[in-house]
């Protein structure tokens, strides 16, 4: 039920006008049918496994979230407080849909689920994230991942 029109006007205006990178290329990677894809979650919720290094401010790097991480072990360390966290508190799939991906894999709808998932901290300037994102692609390929679902907050 929440669209920009339901946010405080100043916040909506700031979010809509947020400067985004102006890319000159439009990359496009094709692949096999969904039933043969290996899928990873890449979040920008500042997710961190409990006890590991939380995001401090606008860190540009990412955190790894192993596929065997339990729901009780995942925390949000995003710097912004202007998004709902109660949905994630009740059910991590609202932000990190690992259970749903596992079900889709068990049903044969997708091929498999990655061994490791990842999170950035979305308030960071994307230009600062670029080298880390490009390095992350190498890790995803090493895990045979050929589809990433990108989850914001």
């Amino acid at each position, binding site marked *: 039920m*929440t669209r920009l029109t339901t946010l*405080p006007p100043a916040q909506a205006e700031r979010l809509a006008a947020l400067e985004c990178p102006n890319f000159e290329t439009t990359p496009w990677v094709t692949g096999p049918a969904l039933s043969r894809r290996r899928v990873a979650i890449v979040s920008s919720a500042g997710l961190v496994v409990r006890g590991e290094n939380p995001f401090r401010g606008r860190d540009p790097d990412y955190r790894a979230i192993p596929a065997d991480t339990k729901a009780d072990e995942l925390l949000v360390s995003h710097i912004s*407080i202007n*998004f709902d966290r109660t949905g994630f508190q009740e059910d991590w799939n*609202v932000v990190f849909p690992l259970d749903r991906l596992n079900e889709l894999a068990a049903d044969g709808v997708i091929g498999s689920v990655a061994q490791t998932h990842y999170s950035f901290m979305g308030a960071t300037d994307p230009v600062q994230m670029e080298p880390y994102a490009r390095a992350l692609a190498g890790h995803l390929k090493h895990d045979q991942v050929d589809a990433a679902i990108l989850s914001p907050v």
Partner: protein
Amino acid sequence: MSALGHYLEEEGIATVAISLIRPQTENTKPPRALWVPFELGRPFGPPNDPVFQKRVILTALRLLERESGPVIIEDFPDDDPRAQPDPAWHPPFVPAAAADGSAETLATQLEVEIPLLRGAHDLWLSQHGRTTVGLNALPMADCGRYVADWVRGKAPPSPRDGFSAPLMLRFAVDDVKAYYLEAGAAGAGKPSSQQLGDWFWNETAAGAAIHALRETCLATQDERLKLIAGNFMVPAARVRGTG
């Protein structure tokens, strides 16, 4: 998020992004995106609704099978049914916030209030088997005392090596909020985020104390503390005077 999709796709990984803010996605032009009409913080929609969540994920993943593109930006058609308030929900009891509103009174009331929510939070734990409290890594009573001492203007040192005191204060405030919002949502009701936020910010001593803490920190000469307190404690929609 869409920029990450661009970088990953350039490196050979096919991506599909969930979009919460359509104008940003339109500007960034990712290879594929599914805009969803959900609240910020809920990219896959309602909690504990696997059928709905799976529809969102599958609608997004199916975009990977499209042969025409880039750029694809589709809209998910349905609203989040859990965005509606639950009229039957009642928050746990907390005493009325202090009338005088002094820092010392608010700090003390925060410390008294936290243990009163223990039963509700234990119920939350038994219902959900998990908590999202833990960034600060202190037990909740100590976490509350750390925040309360900041409310009193004591500027206590960081309890954790390698983490600055203002950063630990931010984490402690996040943990207090998480503890209360989990306790508030315990039980049979299905409150909306708006209901929970209204309760926390308008009716609890913790909400009043964090408002006061923000003002106290903004009045200091510590620029880092002012930055954190000004932007990362009270949501923009809850800052007093901005409605």
